[in-house]
């Protein structure tokens, strides 16, 4: 049972993390190569708080707020840049975060934070909390999709100059995407810290940012269930197949290449095409 719980918790957290990037990159079309920084901010915030005796369920709120606040600042800084420059800026944020954490004694510096307390009701408790948070975030993103905010995001992702000509306040919507997405990543990070019970600067490196992006691209940019499915699979694949863990980057490269080349709509797009064929 313990093993299954670990697998499911890993899946739930990964889904939350990937879906949080999906709001920024999938819904709003803003490529981010630094999403792990916000995952890390949430992880460190929550870990420090639970170590001082606050229950995780409560600590997740400040974790979300801290990540969202930094997300707001990065979003502000990113408003002036687009496309490749945005990618480079957000990548810079990821490196900045790791560099900063390494030098902070309060955050454990190079060594990181260990002895993160277990959650109420132990592993099953954490699984329940993770499932709850992920389910709430799924509901939120489903709602966003249906709302006028999602409608505005569609237009920004499609062509922001045209969105502006239609009266959409593009910078404000982008900022909201950043804040919602980074806050979600903060919650995922808080859960992750209590899943692994040890965090260090290397837990939130560039590879983690890439991982989330791969999940979004392969799942089908913007598709909630597609991204969730791919996140669930990719997150636990290394547990079953050792070589996946060893050749992660290679696997990601192949997956992204194959998606971009043969199925730009990702898994969700493939399923749509398939469903249409069957109906005919």
């Amino acid at each position, binding site marked *: 049972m313990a093993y299954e719980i670990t697998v499911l918790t890993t899946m739930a957290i990964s889904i939350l993390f990937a879906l949080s990037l999906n709001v920024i990159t999938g819904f709003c079309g803003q490529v981010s190569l630094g999403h792990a920084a916000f995952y890390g901010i949430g992880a460190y915030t929550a870990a420090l708080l639970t170590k001082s005796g606050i229950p995780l369920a409560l600590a997740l709120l400040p974790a979300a707020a801290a990540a969202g606040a930094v997300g707001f600042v990065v979003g502000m800084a990113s408003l002036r840049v687009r496309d490749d420059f945005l990618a480079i800026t957000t990548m810079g944020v990821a490196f900045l975060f790791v560099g900063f954490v390494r030098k902070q004694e309060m955050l454990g510096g190079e060594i990181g934070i260990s002895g993160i307390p277990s959650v109420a009701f132990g592993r099953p408790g954490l699984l329940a909390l993770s499932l709850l948070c992920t389910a709430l975030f799924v509901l939120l993103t489903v*709602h966003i999709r249906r709302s*006028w905010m999602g409608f505005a995001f*569609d237009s920004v992702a499609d*062509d922001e100059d045209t969105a502006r*000509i*239609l009266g959409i*306040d593009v910078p404000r919507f982008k900022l909201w995407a950043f804040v919602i997405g980074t806050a979600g990543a903060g919650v995922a990070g808080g859960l992750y810290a209590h899943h692994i019970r040890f965090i260090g600067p290397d837990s939130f490196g560039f590879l983690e940012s890439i991982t989330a992006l791969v999940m979004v691209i392969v799942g089908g940019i913007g598709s909630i269930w597609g991204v969730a499915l791919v996140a669930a699979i990719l997150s636990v694949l290394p547990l079953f197949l050792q070589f996946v863990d060893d050749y992660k980057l290679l696997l990601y490269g192949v997956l992204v290449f194959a998606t971009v080349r043969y199925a730009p709509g990702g898994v969700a797009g493939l399923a749509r095409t398939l469903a249409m064929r069957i109906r005919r």
Partner: protein
Amino acid sequence: MSLLKVENVTMRFGGVAAVEDVSLSVDQGEMLGFIGPNGAGKTTLMRIITGVLRPQTGRVLFRGEDVTRWPVDRRIRAGLALAQQIVKPLASLSLVDNVALAAGAHRMVSPLAALLRTDRETERAKAGALLDFVGLGDALSMMPTELPLGDLKRLEVARALALEPVLLLLDEPLAGLNQGEARAMADLIATLAGKHRGIVLIEHNVREVSRICPRIYVQDNGRGLVDGRADEVLASPELRRAYLGEELA
């Protein structure tokens, strides 16, 4: 009252002055024809008025307010709309959604309000009516990529109308339409000028412009040439000179 005032606006791209020291005003309820040869700076002036481009010198006043430093979307929400010469449909949205988005733009000032609202039916109904009005009533759920240029031009017009502008800027809306269609579209545009709404119609089709616009403004090489009553402008030597070698439709 003057709805739009452009004062001594200059826009240079590198060494080229696309618009040079241009002043122009449009009144409420006015229907202004705007003609000029290729490269005259007509589109550039529309981009300056909507805020896509910031002029090096000069001011733009809209409803008495200096909007020169306003971002595009704020000007649009203040009552401007532009149907662009180079069509810009949102490729991922159906026609009806392209127009519905514009119809709902005024209610989307705040992202929070946008988040709390899911119902699109009112806007879709309005979009449907507008698409029908411009002759795309049968294509509501089609994607922009499935349409010929002439229809995308109609979509541009429908989308601009959905914003319920007090000043409607139309940049060559008749391009891509055959003679009969152009005439019908011009008639339709003529009905849009109201007591409160002003229209600027850029067109190479001088025949239709002179038919529906009581006033015509001519620009050439970035400079304003003539501005006045349509019949007088069309008979003026300046216009002949601007179109020297070209045939007037």
